[in-house]
């Protein structure tokens, strides 16, 4: 049986690795590096980094208090709110795209003129990436030993001080892991962005949009951008593993998803 499992695992892993490896083998590394100098790739990288940085700032500033509230309070409708937070995880990006248009489009609920601007990219990235941060942050806050919080309270610490001096430091590695996941997901955002923000070099064309615009025109440039995203995401996920190993075991994370 062990041999059979090893064979199946080898097949499955090969299937997952093949497309990723193929990106690097199709052309020489020198070509990949050279094509990254292409203006389309360079501009897409700048747009991606800029919009992702802003989006993650938004996610952390708004997401951390939200996650703390969801983790520490028990109230009616809490599970509905948790589900709402998780929803973008499973929604097709196309649904996020029409949703953002229906909410922020010119003829949308709030009728803004955000469409086609870099702010539209930031909103799209925040919408799809935030759940990765908030969900992980809720789990991190929930895993804090309650006796530590109780002890701080008994010693007279106000709620704000408990949050800043006890909860935040104890949850820090979990928050870091959530941020890395959110960042990785945000970098890959495609569907909602192309529908809500359009695709314009130097303004709204992120790396994934650049790949889509280039794959039929110049495949090597698309490959180079793909390779860059693979390298980024691999590094981020590896970082998450490292952060998580000293934070919480997966078995403790699992139950809180259904709570």
């Amino acid at each position: 049986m062990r041999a059979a499992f090893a064979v199946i695992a080898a097949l499955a892993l090969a299937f997952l690795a093949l497309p990723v490896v193929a990106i690097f083998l199709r052309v020489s590394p020198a070509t990949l590096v050279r094509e990254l100098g292409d203006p389309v790739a360079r501009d897409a990288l700048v747009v991606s980094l800029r919009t992702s940085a802003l989006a993650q700032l938004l996610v952390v500033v708004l997401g951390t208090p939200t996650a703390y509230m969801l983790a520490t309070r028990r109230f009616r409708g809490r599970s509905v709110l948790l589900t709402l937070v998780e929803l973008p995880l499973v929604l097709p990006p196309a649904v996020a795209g029409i949703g953002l248009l229906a909410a922020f489009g010119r003829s949308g609920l709030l009728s803004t003129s955000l469409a086609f601007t870099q702010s539209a990219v930031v909103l799209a990235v925040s919408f799809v990436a935030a759940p990765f941060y908030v969900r992980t942050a809720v789990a991190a806050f929930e895993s804090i030993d309650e006796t530590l919080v109780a002890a701080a309270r008994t010693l007279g610490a106000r709620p704000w001080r408990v949050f800043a001096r006890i909860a935040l430091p104890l949850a820090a590695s979990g928050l870091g892991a959530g941020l890395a996941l959110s960042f990785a997901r945000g970098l890959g955002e495609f569907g909602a962005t192309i529908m809500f923000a359009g695709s314009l070099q130097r303004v709204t064309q992120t790396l994934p949009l650049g790949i889509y615009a280039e794959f039929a025109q110049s495949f090597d440039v698309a490959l180079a951008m793909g390779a860059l995203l693979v390298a980024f995401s691999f590094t981020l996920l590896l970082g998450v593993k490292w952060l998580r190993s000293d934070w919480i075991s997966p078995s403790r994370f699992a139950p809180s998803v259904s709570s």
Partner: protein
Amino acid sequence: MSLLAVFAAASLTAVFPGIDRAPRFQFGGSDQLAFQIRQGAPADVFASASPKYAQQLHARGLCSKPKVFATNTLVLIVPRANAAHIRSVYDLRRRGIKLVVGAPGVPIGDYTRTLLARLHLRSALSNVVSNETDVKLVVAKVALGEADAGFVYRTDVKPAGKRVIQLALPATVQPTVKYELCIPTKRKHSQLAARFVREVLSRRGRAALKAAGFGLP
């Protein structure tokens, strides 16, 4: 349902199923469809909005000799509300107009750039807020009212219904828009494919194309 797979330019979305309902259609930017066929996508018929892509496949031995079956012209469309008050193509020079066009390399994108060059309106390209990968996406963004104007084919206006208004463009600056059909090689359904091509070229097919606003070669 026929096994025939027809890869056709997005601008043929409304008319091809009316000529023959049976095939499985894939509509998209001609450049992307041609790319997919080069990568071995199972297309039995390829209908391109520009001779460029059908001829490229033919030159590589990947499809039969292309046949011209329709022509088209470009128009400028604006949302029905026309909040930007665009009355003519020259208003596109105004700053702050949100113009949506096809990306370079996509047939509608290349035709649009030719047309703007002939109008000495290349400056309007600085108002472009998005380069779309096929013409239907240009239509969608104008019809939603998110964009102030977009260049599309004349035949895209009717399917968009009342959501857009078209502004005609001078005939003298129109680029030559030719649609070509070819049959990819090494496919099993070449007889069915040839029949589909004959249908499009038949009197009934030509009538359907004409009713949709296409020109006939």
